[in-house]
């Protein structure tokens, strides 16, 4: 069943009648990243205005693969369970060369996490859930059909000129989040450009509606018989919608390829029949590029406005939500006076690092999938040929390395006997706790976990008993540990033994932007 794109109401903003007081945060763009940022700030008690030039959710499924970390972030802002319930949960990917499976991967083999490895869910559903949640919040002021036409940065605020159906008005903000997507008008207004690599490749993307019993797995083909010499990707979505990506080659004519009479025969060859309906199609090329800096004084770039990647690792939308994760608590602390503005430099440092990792992985996959003539192609073809004959070549077949949160390179106290999976800089691994989950207990506060030992006097902590999951993920060979967890659920430091002063010094260093 096709999605019903009901428009959101436009309400004349108060600023048309009289100047509005300066806002702490204005978010430009009501896509998944902008909406999630508003809810994350609201979780920290910070009010924001969200402006969008449009008044409907994303047209077409666009971002569909939501990774475990994204689901955990979405859960913290109240929509994670709805996404899992509606979406198609999967964790296995199968890669084929011609008709033969050459490689498969399981992204989350062991149980004991609230959120699955991946959920496929059309971007419009995620946006719908986020909009509903924003409308329920007293701290989010969502304004559709409010188009930002210029931005100006002064000594103590940024000023936005906005057009509405009822005319223009202006708003002032302490900070502006540019969540306005890959073609970010704010980025253009600031005269900024991406740096990095463009790829000469063209893909057709099609959502089709059909009754079928494909398993809930990610299927990828190199040189399949149904699409000679190229590659293809199949993903299952809810509502009997399937996503098919077909490589077209750089020589193809995008206008011709976009015509339904040319798309339908291609899809017929993939699915083997014509009993389907085209729901949405698009032709895309891709880039792996980013802004040099994400923080430009009072304007902060978040999501696709800051960085773009090729789609095969699901690192676009998921990377954007990780930006929100890294920014929300810091911006809230700066706006409320809890921390100096220097804390925002840590957002820039961590997310340019994360973005580089995403760009590296996506570029490698792209180079494997659409090798240029010469050495790139010789080695790509050699890897595919060897994969059927030698085990070592199978994991080298690169159809996309799927989004995982990066390990931030933070300089923090660590204890060698504790497990690698929870080392400083990693997202704290989830684990069952009573009737609930560890990550839900952490919420979005700076938290000390005392595991297998009492918290030192003068430190407020959550005390955990060493269950099998807690032991495997937090203790390893040790009997006891103390973990300091940041508000974005990233492990900030850990010790086998620590006194209150040591822990407090680390907490202070984080708030001051020194760690």
């Amino acid at each position, binding site marked *: 069943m096709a999605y019903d794109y009901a428009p959101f109401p436009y309400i004349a903003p108060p600023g048309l009648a009289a100047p509005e007081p300066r806002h702490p945060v204005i978010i430009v763009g009501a896509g998944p990243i902008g909406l999630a940022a508003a809810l994350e700030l609201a979780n920290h008690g910070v009010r924001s205005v969200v402006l969008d030039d449009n008044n409907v959710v994303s047209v077409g499924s666009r971002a569909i693969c939501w990774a475990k970390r994204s689901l955990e972030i979405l859960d913290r802002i109240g929509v994670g369970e709805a996404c899992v319930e509606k979406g198609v949960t999967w964790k296995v990917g199968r890669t084929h060369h011609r008709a033969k499976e050459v490689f498969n991967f399981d992204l989350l083999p062991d149980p004991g996490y609230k959120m699955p490895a991946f959920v496929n869910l059309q971007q419009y559903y995620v946006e719908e859930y986020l909009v509903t949640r924003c409308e329920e919040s007293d701290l989010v002021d969502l304004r559709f059909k409010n188009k930002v036409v210029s931005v100006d940065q002064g000594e103590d605020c940024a000023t936005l000129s906005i057009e509405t159906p009822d005319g223009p008005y202006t708003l002032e903000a302490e900070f502006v989040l540019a969540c306005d997507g890959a073609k970010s008008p704010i980025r253009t207004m600031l005269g900024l450009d991406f740096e990095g690599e463009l790829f000469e490749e063209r893909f057709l993307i099609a959502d089709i509606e059909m009754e079928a019993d494909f398993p809930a797995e990610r299927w990828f083909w190199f040189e399949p018989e149904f699409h000679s010499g190229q590659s293809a990707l199949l993903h299952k979505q809810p509502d009997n919608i399937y996503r098919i990506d077909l490589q077209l080659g750089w020589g193809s004519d995008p206008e011709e390829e976009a015509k339904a009479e040319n798309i339908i025969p291609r899809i017929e060859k993939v699915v083997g029949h014509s009993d389907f309906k085209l729901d949405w199609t698009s032709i895309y090329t891709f880039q792996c590029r980013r802004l040099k800096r994400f923080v430009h004084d009072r304007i902060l770039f978040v999501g696709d406005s800051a960085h773009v990647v090729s789609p095969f690792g699901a690192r676009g939308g998921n990377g954007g939500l990780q930006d929100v994760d890294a920014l929300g608590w810091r911006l809230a602390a700066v706006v409320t006076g809890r921390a100096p503005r220097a804390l925002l430099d840590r957002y820039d440092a961590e997310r340019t690092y994360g973005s580089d990792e995403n760009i590296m992985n996506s570029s490698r996959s792209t180079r494997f999938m659409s090798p240029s003539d010469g050495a790139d192609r010789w*080695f790509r*073809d050699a890897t595919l040929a*060897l994969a059927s004959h*030698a085990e070592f070549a199978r994991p080298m077949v690169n159809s996309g390395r799927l989004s995982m949160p990066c390990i931030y390179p933070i300089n923090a106290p660590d204890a060698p006997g504790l497990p690698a999976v929870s080392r400083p800089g990693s997202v704290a691994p989830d684990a069952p706790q009573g009737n609930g989950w560890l990550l839900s207990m952490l919420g979005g506060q700076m938290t000390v976990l005392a595991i297998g030992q009492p918290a030192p006097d003068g430190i407020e902590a959550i005390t955990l008993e060493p269950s099998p999951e807690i032991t495997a993920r937090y203790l390893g060979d040790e009997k006891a540990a103390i973990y300091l967890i940041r508000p974005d659920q990233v492990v900030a430091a850990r010790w086998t033994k620590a006194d209150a002063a040591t822990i407090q010094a680390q907490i202070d260093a984080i708030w001051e932007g020194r760690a």
Partner: protein
Amino acid sequence: MSLITAKNIEDHDGAYADLLAAHRGLDTEASAALNARLILILMNHIGDRAVLREAIDLARTSGT
């Protein structure tokens, strides 16, 4: 471990002849493909990133 650049194959003439024999009758394209497969197999056998980087450097700088 570092890259072995001293003689390391007992019958080097025989091994060299094996390599040429594998390429006999192949056109340039098929030879390039064979070389690519062979390099990947040997890379995996060596397994050590540092040694591989040394080998790549030596190959790159010894062409003239």
